[in-house]
């Protein structure tokens, strides 16, 4: 099992006391499989994704990633995890504005210590970015930007891809095309995919889906 969550609880401090965002979540995902995480706004699905990515830590429970419980790891270990094991695709793309497309694409792979020019070239071709490699993110369309973000993530060959509404900022046609690309590329790399979406239509295209409601799995 690549990913296993065990009784995850998460609170957020608010003005009216702690808000219980996640209630005893249990979840698992095998390598090479894809799982859709659906739910309404505020159901806690992004939070769950962030916990898995090692961006935040739960208040209770365990997260086993590739056999290691990442809960309680220090900052450096978590950073190494993010660098080497997981890849993140955000709704806002979150490209690095100061780097051009080529550098953005290569960035995480190089951070992870796995630069692979051949694979990068393939990715650029497949993502239709070969002609815009010298451009800067702000000069791209939103669809192109998200393709760069996906390419950047996959270039490092993470074992787990985490996507948070990856097509949420795109129109439906572009979104579908980008999603198709992402799914096929993830499948090719053999990575597992955990994708947060509020769209049933998109969720149905993944191997499995779980629904989060008010912090509990339905």
């Amino acid at each position: 099992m690549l990913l296993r969550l065990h009784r995850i609880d998460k609170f957020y401090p608010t003005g009216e006391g702690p808000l219980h965002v996640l209630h005893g979540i249990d979840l698992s995902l095998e390598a090479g499989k894809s799982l859709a995480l659906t739910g309404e706004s505020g159901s806690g699905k992004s939070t769950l994704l962030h916990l898995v990515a090692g961006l935040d830590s739960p208040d209770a429970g365990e997260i086993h990633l590739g056999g290691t419980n990442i809960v309680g790891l220090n900052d450096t270990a978590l950073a190494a995890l993010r660098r080497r094991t997981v890849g993140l695709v955000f709704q806002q793309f979150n490209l690095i504005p100061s780097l051009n497309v080529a550098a953005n694409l290569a960035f995480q792979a190089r951070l992870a210590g796995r630069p692979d020019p051949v694979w990068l070239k393939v990715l650029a071709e497949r993502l239709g970015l070969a002609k815009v490699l010298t451009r800067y993110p702000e000069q791209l369309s939103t669809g192109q930007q998200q393709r760069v973000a996906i390419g950047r993530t996959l270039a490092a060959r993470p074992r787990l891809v985490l996507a948070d509404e990856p097509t949420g900022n795109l129109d439906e046609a572009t979104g579908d095309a980008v999603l198709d690309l992402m799914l096929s590329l993830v499948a090719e790399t053999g990575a597992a995919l955990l994708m947060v979406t509020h769209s049933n239509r998109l969720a149905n295209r993944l191997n499995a889906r779980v629904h989060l409601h008010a912090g509990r799995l339905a």
Partner: protein
Amino acid sequence: MVWTGLTALLSHWRRRPVQLAMLLLGLSLATALWSAIQAINGEARASYDRAAAILGQDRIAQLVREDGARIDQQVFVRLRRAGWLVSPVIEGEMRFGDVRLRVLGIDPLTLPPQAQQVDVAAGDELLPFITAPGVLYAAPETAARLTEQATPPVRVAEGLPPGTVLTDIGQAQVLLGAKDKISRLLLWPDQPIGRPPLKVTVPGLTVREPSETGDLARLTDSFHLNLTAFGFLAFAVGLFIVHSAIGLAFEQRRQVFRTLRALGLPTRVLVLLLIAELLIFALLAGLVGVALGYVVASALLPDVAATLRGLYGADVPGTLSIRPAVWAAGLAIAVIGTLVAAAQSLWRLWHLPLLAPAQPRAWARASERALRAQGVTAMVLLLAAAGIAQFGSGLEAGFALLAVLLLGAALALPLVLTGILHLGDRLARGPLAEWFWADTRQQLPGLSLALMALLLALAANVGVSTMVSSFRLTFIGWLDQRLASELYVTARTEAEATAIHDWLVQRSDAVLPIWSIEGRVAGQPAAIYGVADHATYRDNWPILSAVPEVWDRIAKGEGALINEQLARRQGLGLGDQITLPGGWRASIVGVYADYGNPIGQVIIGIDTLVRHYPDVSRLRYAIRIAPGKAEALARGLRAEFGLPAQNVIDQAGIKVFSLEVFERTFNVTAALNVLTLGVAGLAMFASLMTLSGMRLPQLAPVWAMGLTRRHLAWLELSRGLLLAALTMLAAVPVGIALAFVLLAVVNVEAFGWRLPMYLFPGDWARLAALALLAAGLAAVVPAWRLARLSPSDLLKVFAHER
């Protein structure tokens, strides 16, 4: 609606007290430095005006001798007996203990009402005033300085210039050793009818018309211009802080602005509300700044006063009086500065589309085109600087040159830094390094104002310290040459002087007279010295240019040496003729360096001096003796003649005194330098704080991709240090150019001497360390905050709804 709008706008600051503090601090500091300098200048000018107005000189004409020499007292009686209403004045410098004063002797009975400064005859005061030992009237400060000294009774009188004592003409003649002599005659504005013409009655005298500004105001003009330039620089640097703080606040409140407008608040009202908000801040910070300025000015004024006294003989009080005009101007400049700093933001707000997408980074991002335009402007300014350097002349041109040079350099800085960062990018290996360089370049527009401020401060520092150090080196060398004799003695009477001379001839290697008269040469006040024909002068005198066998010619009475400032101011050179007091002419055979002396100086042979001025006071001698025996001789001299300690001074004593004057001259400059650097550091801090708020969207993805917050924080800190270091590098050539302008243009105009430039890389290293320290301090807080940021704050970047 208005009130609601204003509270909505102001609520922003409650949530961001640091930002508010930064805005107020920047504005206060800028105002403080500006007001401080204005206050100092105002104080000095007021005291020049007082000096110029003393005895009504600014309102009534005077009769003087063309050559500035003293006039026989009988001339006064002759004029009065001929029907001319005139009043005699005698004026001179003298020492009471270690306090040097200008003594002004008046005749209260004939003094024109316009010239009456002090009621010296109130009550029963007239008799003690006119009979020995007399009474000295002095300003409170001057009187306080005299409490320890043996003087005639001192009475306090407001309104007298500092460093001046007013006394009866008869007493003044005794004090100054000028029996039956007067310096000038005040001419009553209303004269009786039937007077013979002045030319017939007193052929040797000319009328000097009343003058609003005295010699002092003219002489010290450049000094004050210097200070003003510094004040302006400091203010400009301060405004950088204000600009960035306001820009940030506007950017952060875009959402609020849009909401307010969507809720029906007209743009005009919104802009007016923001202006009102800014005015509140400006007034608040202005008040604080003005108060702070008073403190700074009070702290600096004693040094300024000492400088002006040492360098120009101008007496300025060491304490500050409250001048409402100066402080009102301080408030006004705070308000104007705020509005100028906010103009860009307000302009953008005016043109803000109602539904523009939120783009926090837009503020920090300047387009390539803007950068190019800035580069072109910088080039134009630097070319203009070159043009002024080539074709301009005069002090104004010197300062204009400084202004365009500094501004051009500042504007060129972002361009230069962009180039360097591109280069760094190209040379970088590894993704993080590449990202670091690229991201630093990306940051540049948001930081460029602060960096420009830093460049200005650093360049000013390099320039001024180069100038001061060059000056010091030259000055010390010059002192060694100029003060070749081991001892200097001043007798109290001519009889004593003769006795001292005879006594010394047996006991020393040489006794050299230092006798001088004061007068006017080429319309300027000057001193004329006589020198003996002695190796002391032949070997040591700091000659800049001279004809062959110059000392032989001086000894033969053929010609005169003049100091550099006289030569430069009057455009005199070797072979030119000058007219000396008494109307005789001499040809210039040499020019010598004479630093630290505001007035002209002429040197002729001692015999020539005595022949032309038989009345010259013969009280001072320089003594040559083996250095080891100097102290014993000085002791013997004091004991033998009962001379006060300050009448026998050794070479070291004079050097210490001279260097002290020198150091004080540049104390103020140094203090302002440090303050300006501090403000620049603060500007950088404000900018980095500002940017750190906007940096999160750029940093969060990198964090998400596997960097720790600590690592990011270190990178942020290094970025600040890198930019500061690059700016420092850029500042060195600018500073050297600045030093060159100061030494070769401004000093020549301001003081009348030109100095060689020496470079002191050690100073630059120290300054660089200081700059890095300042930048490090400025960068460390945002970096530390980044390192301590909670993940949830970073995660907000990834949240869907923003």
